[in-house]
C-alpha cells in the first residue's frame, strides 16, 4: 500500500481525483438542475466522434474530444428555451454522433476498438494534460458558481422567473452547457465513459436529498465527492481492484443511503449546517 502510494502514476491519479472531486459534483448539480441527465451519454458519443476525427487528422484525440463536446454543448443552448427541448435533442445528437464517428473511423481506416479504448479511461493512465484540464475545471467551476450563484439558483429553479429577474438566461445556459460538456469530456479520462456518474451525478443526487438550497447542494456534493473519491481510491488500492468501479459503487452506496435517511433528520442537518 505505502509502496503503491510512492508511485508517480498513483500520486498523479490521486491528485486528479481530488481536482475532479472539486469541480465535477458541481457540474452534476447543474446537470440535475437543467434536467439533462442523458447529457453524459450524448457527450460520450460525441467524444468518440472527436477521438475519431483526431485519429483521422493526426491531432491529439482527447483534445479533439474536448473541443467537439464543447461545441456541441454550445450548439444545444438555443434548444433550452422549450422545457423538453434539451433532453430530446440529446437523443438525436447521440445517434448522429455515433454514426458520424463510425463513418470517420471507417474512412480513416483505424480499428474502431483503438478509438473505443480511449473511452475506457483509467485513473492510473491519467496524463499531465488531463490533470491540467481538471485543474482548470476545479478553479473555473467553483469560481463561476460563487460568482453567479444567485442567478444560477433562479435559472435552475425556474427559467421564466429568472428571465423576469434580469438574469441573462440564454448566455448563462450557454456557458453552463459548454462547461458541462467539457467537464464530462475531461471526466471520461478519469473513470471511463460509463463511470463518469461516480464523479458527477451520484454526489449531486445525494446532495439534492440532503440540502435545501442550491449553495447547500453544491457544498454537500463537493464534500461527498472528495470523501468518496479519496476513500474509494484507497479502497481500490487495498483490494487491488480497478478504481473506476469501486468509486462508482461507493458513490452509489452513499447516494442510496442519502435517499433512505428519514426526511426529518435531513432538515435538522440542514439547519445545523446553514448556521
Amino acid at each position, binding site marked *: 500500500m505505502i509502496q503503491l502510494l510512492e508511485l508517480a502514476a498513483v500520486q498523479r491519479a490521486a491528485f486528479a481525483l481530488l481536482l475532479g472531486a472539486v469541480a465535477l459534483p458541481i457540474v452534476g448539480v447543474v446537470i440535475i438542475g437543467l434536467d439533462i441527465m442523458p447529457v453524459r451519454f450524448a457527450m460520450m458519443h460525441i467524444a468518440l466522434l472527436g477521438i475519431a476525427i483526431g485519429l483521422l487528422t493526426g491531432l491529439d484525440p482527447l483534445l479533439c474530444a474536448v473541443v467537439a463536446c464543447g461545441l456541441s454543448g454550445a450548439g444545444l443552448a438555443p434548444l433550452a428555451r422549450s422545457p423538453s427541448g434539451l433532453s430530446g435533442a440529446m437523443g438525436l445528437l447521440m445517434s448522429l454522433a455515433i454514426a458520424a464517428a463510425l463513418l470517420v473511423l471507417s474512412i480513416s481506416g483505424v480499428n474502431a476498438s483503438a478509438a473505443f479504448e480511449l473511452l475506457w479511461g483509467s485513473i492510473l493512465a491519467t496524463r499531465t494534460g488531463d490533470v491540467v484540464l481538471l485543474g482548470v475545471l476545479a478553479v473555473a467551476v467553483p469560481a463561476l458558481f460563487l460568482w453567479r450563484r444567485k442567478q444560477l439558483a433562479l435559472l435552475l429553479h425556474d427559467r421564466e422567473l429568472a*428571465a423576469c429577474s434580469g438574469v441573462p438566461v440564454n448566455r448563462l445556459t450557454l456557458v453552463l452547457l459548454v462547461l458541462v460538456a467539457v467537464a464530462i469530456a475531461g471526466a471520461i479520462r478519469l473513470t471511463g465513459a460509463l463511470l463518469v456518474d461516480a464523479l458527477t451525478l451520484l454526489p449531486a443526487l445525494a446532495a439534492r436529498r440532503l440540502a*435545501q*438550497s442550491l449553495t447547500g447542494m453544491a457544498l454537500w456534493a463537493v464534500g461527498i465527492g472528495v470523501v468518496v473519491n479519496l476513500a474509494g481510491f484507497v479502497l481500490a488500492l487495498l483490494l487491488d481492484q480497478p478504481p473506476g468501479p469501486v468509486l462508482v459503487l461507493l458513490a452509489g452506496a452513499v447516494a442510496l443511503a442519502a435517499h433512505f435517511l428519514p426526511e426529518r433528520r435531513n432538515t435538522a442537518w440542514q439547519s445545523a449546517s446553514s448556521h
Partner: protein
Amino acid sequence: MLVKTTGLPVRLAGVSCAHGGRTVVRAVSLDVPAGHRVALTGTNGSGKTTLLRAVLGLHRACDGVVEVGARQARTAADWTRRRREIAWIPQRQAAGRFPLLVDELLASSGAVDRAREAARELGVGDLGRQPVHTLSGGQLQRAYLARAIGCVEAGAGVLLADEPTAALDFAGQTAVAELLTSLPVTVVVVTHDRAVAARCERVLEMAAGSLREIT
C-alpha cells in the same frame, strides 16, 4: 410610499397569440393609461394568462403591437428593460424543479429590503430560510406578492398579476386586493376575485381570445 410614481402606460393593439397552432388571443386592443387599474376576467382558457405573458415576451408566438411606457420591445436589451419595468406575479408560482430559498426569491426583485418588509407585512416574514417548495399555496402567493412589491420599489412601473389572490383565504383576499391596488403603478390583474375587481377602474371580460368591456 404612495404617489412616488404614477406608473407606465400599457398599450396593446391588434395582439394575437397562438398556442400550438391554435389562436388563443384574437386581435386584442387595450389602452391602459399610466396609473390605471384594469381587471381581466373570463372563463378558463380564454387567453388571459397568454396575454399577460405576451407583454413580458414569455409567449413568443404573437403578432401585433405591445407597448409599455410607449416603447416596443424588439432586441434582447429591449426585453430586459421591459421585464425590469414590470412586476410580475405568475399564475402558477413554480414550486420549481430545484430548491430556491424564499430569501433568494425576494432578493430577485432587485430591492431585497423592501421585499422583506412586504413579506413581514404579509405574514411570511419569518420564512426566509425555507425553500419555496415547502411553502403552502397561500404562503407562496404571499411571497411572490412581496417580491412584486420589491420590484415596484426597484423601479417597475407596471404590475401584471395573474390570479394573485386565488390561493388566499377571504381575509387574505381583501387585504391583498387593497395592497395591490394601492401600489403607485399601472395594474393589469387577471382575477375571478370580486374584492380585486371592485378596486379596479375598469373590468374587462375575455372570451375565446377576445376582449370586451364590462364596466
